[in-house]
């Protein structure tokens, strides 16, 4: 692990700062970045960029500019926009690059479009034909690019034009195409839900896809659908439980592991889905107790990512219909977090406590010494999270003390948002407990 970190540390700065080693490659972008880095004032930066932009304006209008050169110009345009300078005269050329360029130019064109344009931009209509063509390309790379850009930015009104092609891709032999098609349909669902009403059956097929990547991509759609109406999907609980069991049990290919933990972000996604399904529903919750217990046990390894999974597990245990043994284990877990010397874990523990106190006020009582210590912690983030926790355990007995602590914090606070947020809380408490 330390070998990777060492290699990365030496590699990363070289990617972006031209002062370090990797500058065997000289190109206009590097020169531009170098010049910007060497400048000292915003004014100088403005002048340099303005010059660069006018040079680019000339180049894009010239008929002699090749697609390769256009690609290079596009990279500089993206850089200028990243610094906050408008390069909108290049937008149309980005689309042309995606349309006419060879495969790398095409990718850069699509990338530029995804960075420059957003929903509702009129130029997006011009992208539709290019996307349609690439979706039908026999070259898989081009089809992938088209699917990616469709999922990133696509005009809502033109969805019907491209929907049949995307739907078709759901049964493509290559997993990457199926996976990207599902994600494109997820985007369509978010921006125009009625356009994809009729294909819910196809999402089910994706969920049961033999490839874990395709199954994972369908979870994004399901999480959204279940959030909106959990009752319609209770019948899938068994499937989600089985999938989580298989993941936790190490049934996925080894390259799905991250530091020996099997597909951790997938586990988190599944835990969130299960929470939503088991909430206020005893019979559905009973289906998941076993796998939650297993997840709580498996995540005993000493790594940040297992702690992240544990956190979701604990939240799930407290959200669904209660089971004594699980709650006990989860409470112990929170205790370990809160008492941990590792500051990130302490934060997570406080956050978990804040979530859990609505269900179990005793837990906060158990850790009150630690909570009081955290109130005076030097780390602002920890202090703030502790106040959030205190706000939730306020009652008639401790309200005076808690409000005093909040006012103390406010006195030392400079951030507008925090001030407004806390003053609001104090006001609420004052309303709730008028005699103190």
């Amino acid at each position, binding site marked *: 692990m330390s070998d990777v970190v060492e290699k990365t540390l030496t590699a990363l700065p070289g990617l972006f700062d031209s002062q370090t080693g990797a500058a065997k490659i000289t190109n206009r972008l590097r020169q531009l970045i170098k010049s910007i880095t060497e400048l000292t004032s915003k004014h100088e930066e403005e002048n340099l960029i303005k010059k660069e932009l006018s040079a680019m304006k000339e180049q894009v209008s010239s008929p002699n500019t090749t697609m390769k050169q256009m690609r290079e110009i596009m990279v500089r345009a993206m*850089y200028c926009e990243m610094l906050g300078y408008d390069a909108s005269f290049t937008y149309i050329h980005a689309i042309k690059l995606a349309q006419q360029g060879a495969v790398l130019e095409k990718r850069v064109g699509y990338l530029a479009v995804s960075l420059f344009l957003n929903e509702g931009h009129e130029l997006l209509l011009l992208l539709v034909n290019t996307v349609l063509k690439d979706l039908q390309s026999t070259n898989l790379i081009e089809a992938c690019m088209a699917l990616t850009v469709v999922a990133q930015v696509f005009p809502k009104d033109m969805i019907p034009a491209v929907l049949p092609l995307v739907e078709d891709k759901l049964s493509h032999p290559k997993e990457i195409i199926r996976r990207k098609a599902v994600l494109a349909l997820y985007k369509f669902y978010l921006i125009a839900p009625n356009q994809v009403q009729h294909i819910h059956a196809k999402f089910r097929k994706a969920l049961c896809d033999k490839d874990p990547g395709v199954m994972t991509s369908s979870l994004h759609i399901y999480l959204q659908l279940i*959030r909106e109406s959990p009752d319609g999907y209770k019948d899938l609980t068994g499937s989600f439980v089985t999938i989580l069991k298989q993941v936790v049990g190490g049934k996925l290919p080894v390259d799905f592991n991250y530091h020996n933990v099997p597909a951790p*972000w997938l586990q988190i996604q599944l835990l969130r889905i299960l929470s939503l399904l088991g909430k206020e529903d005893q019979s559905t919750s009973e289906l998941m107790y076993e796998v939650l217990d297993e997840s709580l046990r498996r995540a005993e390894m000493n790594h940040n990512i297992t702690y992240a999974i544990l956190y979701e597990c604990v939240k799930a245990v407290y959200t669904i219909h209660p089971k004594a043994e699980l709650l006990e284990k989860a409470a112990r877990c929170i205790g370990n977090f809160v008492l941990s010397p590792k500051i990130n874990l302490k934060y997570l523990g406080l956050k978990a406590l804040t979530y859990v106190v609505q269900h179990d006020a005793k837990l906060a009582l158990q850790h009150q010494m630690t909570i009081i210590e955290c109130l005076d912690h030097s780390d602002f983030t920890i202090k703030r999270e502790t106040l959030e926790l205190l706000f939730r355990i306020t009652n008639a007995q401790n309200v005076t003390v808690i409000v005093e602590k909040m006012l103390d914090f406010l006195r030392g606070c400079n951030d507008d948002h925090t001030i407004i947020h806390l003053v609001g809380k104090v006001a609420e408490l004052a309303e709730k407990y008028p005699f103190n």
Partner: protein
Amino acid sequence: MAPERLLWISCQRTDLPAAISPIPGSVAPLFLITMIKFLLMVNKQGQTRLSKYYEQVELGKRTALEADVVRGCLARRKEECSFVEYKDYKLVYRQYAALFIVVGITENENELSIFELVHNFVEVLDKYFSRVSELDVSLSKNTHYTNKVHIILDEMILNGHIVETNKNRILAPLLALDKMTES
């Protein structure tokens, strides 16, 4: 205090979990949105090296946001946690030598999982670029590193959601693209 801000305060309820955080000025989301708002790579001098926004932020407002965000992260000490409360959402940051990677996330997102996602991203970059540096220089002659980083990121995060974390699968399209460009 301006009247619209007071309205925001009175809308806050205690019976809801810490997740809900109405963003003043925007349409309140019907359901709790959990997402990544942006990802930035910034150096210690505060110069942005890469920015990816998964939520609409006006071009003119971005540099100010980025400067503010990096200021917040630079002010943190080593022994403090890697999460900062910022406006009505959160920042997760991780430092790699001279580079900060900062991710803006909604309140209800799992901070530690994003913290590790950043590391996964760095490991993927390492996997790809250490392979590249072994190749012939002429091959990498017109390689635009920034593009490649964007392309890799596009495979991992889409619309603010984590869509792929398997390193081989993340790199497959880019490696295929490289191969095609070679020939």
